[in-house]
């Protein structure tokens, strides 16, 4: 949820919500307008009961539909659960329909869980991976963006880039990390250590998690 940059008021689609739609509930609590779908009638029925008990029925729209039959055009973010099949088709469709502003977050299995769930081959993705977080219990979350921006961790050394967007952090603007500013990657460390960026005459070390959330674009 962190890597997707969720903000209140966003329209979010949850594909494969299952009988206990935790992700959808969390998104609704952050103030998003959520639509949750599943192609299993029993799951949808159970999910409806859960939402009723929690009093969230108005905030989350439940629908019985297949992931590759949905229109994704009106959504800002799409979350695709790990067990969704065929995942790559759903991803393709979501990315192509969402246009420039959207992002898709999906989960891939790691390690032993690969035996039970299918993962998407990263090379086949329709657009580059925007960021990636390894989770416990053999999962990982990946975020892909539907427009061609990259984050700071993907920049090459010495490449002159323009900052597109910056996560909310009180120190970043004061250190010159603001949209529209030039930035140049100067170094990186082992073990997912910080990235060194040159901005506004300053050298700033940015933690990996933070650098992943800074969107950049090639300069002129």
């Amino acid at each position, binding site marked *: 949820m962190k890597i997707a940059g969720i903000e209140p008021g966003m329209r979010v689609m949850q594909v494969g919500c299952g009988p206990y739609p935790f992700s959808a509930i969390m998104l609704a609590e952050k103030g998003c307008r959520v639509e949750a779908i599943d192609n299993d009638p029993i799951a949808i029925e159970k999910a409806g009961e859960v939402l009723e008990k929690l009093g969230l029925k108005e905030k989350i729209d439940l629908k019985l539909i297949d992931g590759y039959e949905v229109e994704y055009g009106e959504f800002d973010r799409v979350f695709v659960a790990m067990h969704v099949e065929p995942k790559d088709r759903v991803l393709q469709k979501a990315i192509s329909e969402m246009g420039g502003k959207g992002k898709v977050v999906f989960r891939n299995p790691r390690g032993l869980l690969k035996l039970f769930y299918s993962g998407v081959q990263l090379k086949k993705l329709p657009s580059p991976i925007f960021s990636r977080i390894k989770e416990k219990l053999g999962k990982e979350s990946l975020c892909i963006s539907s427009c061609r921006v990259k984050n700071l961790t993907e920049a090459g050394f010495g490449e002159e880039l323009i900052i597109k967007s910056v996560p909310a*952090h*009180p*120190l*970043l*603007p*004061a*250190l*010159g990390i*603001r949209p529209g500013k030039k930035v140049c990657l*100067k*170094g*990186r*460390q*082992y*073990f*997912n*250590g*910080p990235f*060194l960026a040159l901005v*506004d*005459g*300053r*050298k*700033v*070390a*940015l*933690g990996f*998690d*933070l650098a992943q959330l800074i969107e950049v674009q090639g300069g002129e």
Partner: protein
Amino acid sequence: MSGNKNRNRKRHHCGQKPEKFKPGEKSILLIGPPNVGKSVFFNYFTGLEASVGNYAGTTVEFSRGRMAIRGFQYDLIDVPGTYTLDATNPAEKVAVDMLKQRPAGIVCVLDANSLESGLYLLYQVLEFKLPTVVAINRSDLARERGYLTDFNTLESELGIPVIETVALTSQGLEAVREKIFSAPVSSEPLPEVSSQRWERAEKIAGKAQKIKTSRSGETKRQKLDRWLTNPWPGLPLAVLILSFIFAIIIGLGMGLRQYILLPFFRGLVFPPLIQGVEGIIPPGIIRDILIGEYGFLIKGLEWPLALVFPYVLSFYFALSVLEDSGYLPRFGILLDGIMAKIGLRGSNIIPLLLGYGCAIPGILGTRALESKKERIMISTMISLAVPCISQSGAFFALLAEVSILVVLALFAFSILAMFVAGLVMDRLLPGKRMDTVLEIPELLFPRPRFLGRKVLMRIKGYIFNGAVPMVMAVGIASLFYETGILVFVGRILSPLIEQWLRLPQEAAVPLVLGIVRRELAVLPLVEMGLSQTQLLVGAIVALFYVPCIAVLATLAREFNLKIAALILLVTVATAFLTGGLLARILELIF
């Protein structure tokens, strides 16, 4: 109204020791971002008389000194460095509060190398409508980089005096002093919201500064910087630098001790002292207390001044060089990835390193951290496994004669213990790891003048806060020893000492003394004629043992009694557990 409230707050806190202070109309504030060289301005204007105090009701520290302007005395206050006045962290809140007290004037120190964000801060300062003069510092460095600044344009755009300075060479500083009182309150209309402020800062910076980057390859400084901040060759270089520092601390310390201080005390000070005491006081318990085995006059002088002091001197010299050169943040980011494994950040290495001098500045150094989890973790790690310089000095005295490898092994073990403690605490304590956002300041060659001053201040701190209590502790110890109380305690503790740790009964002495001060858990072992195994066991127990009374008091004040008690429990338990286990393992091997 706010003044009244603050006075109440002040009274409320007056039971605490650190000086509390609020600026008044006789004060000048020195404001600017971190790493801009404000403290150099401060030292230049105030000379050697400066005091460090706590801002009323907070833990934020600032320096204060006297500054003469046209024959009048003012209080110059070095406000903690802030990038903005948005009041998102304790330092920024203090800066805003100080401005609200309406001081007489403001010196706003900005960096010529990042003019734009400096101007943003300046616009926030100007909102307080106080006489302000702007110093654009580090202009030599900016020129080296091809930043050409037009100070006249800047002055006319801002409507207040703007002075080009290079603080390290004192250039422009007299002009700053001259202009403080001709400084008008800016009459320009000010931007009101953050986005307007950035817009204006951007416009003016663009107008007044032209960037002419002559792409003639990187300078030597940039090349060295690149080497130091990338894993290759940064990591091997870090190992090299630390080994070099370690060698300097031990080598310089041992040399001083062996060839200057010990001969001085043993040859010149002690013989007349012993003669004098023997002449005045008849044999008996009082004479023994003064010059006997734990003689207050003998050990009380020899331990703090001849055994420990040389290492204090060499350690603070080395630490100050590291600090002033700007190497520490670079070292920090190299370690950030590894520190992340235990939920900490690379920059946390700085309070830990301070802890190798004395635990108290190390613990106080965590005050600026926003996360309580980080503070508790670092304070516990320091209390548990970071030997202070007095204790390290004692370890060197105890173990270096056996083998320097044993000393290295002991330090390696202490780092391992810190890592394990970090892992455990990261799991146990709630809270998330904070993001790393750290400005890497320019590499500088340390200036001997500032270096000397810094070392001198720290030595002064050691003499008053370290050596004097040590002398008193030795005095009490010799009283206990000669009256037989220590032997009695030794007998009570004997199952623990003799059977579990396999040390001689006399080892009760360091265990009792070690409660008072860390190094006293080590020093008495020096003359006991212990076997190598016993030496190691004794050293390990001493390493983890009680983190000295002053540190416990600091922990209780900074956090609360419960946390201090918990840390005490953890340290003592770890000490005896590892000590006993090690004794058994070593027995099996040898």
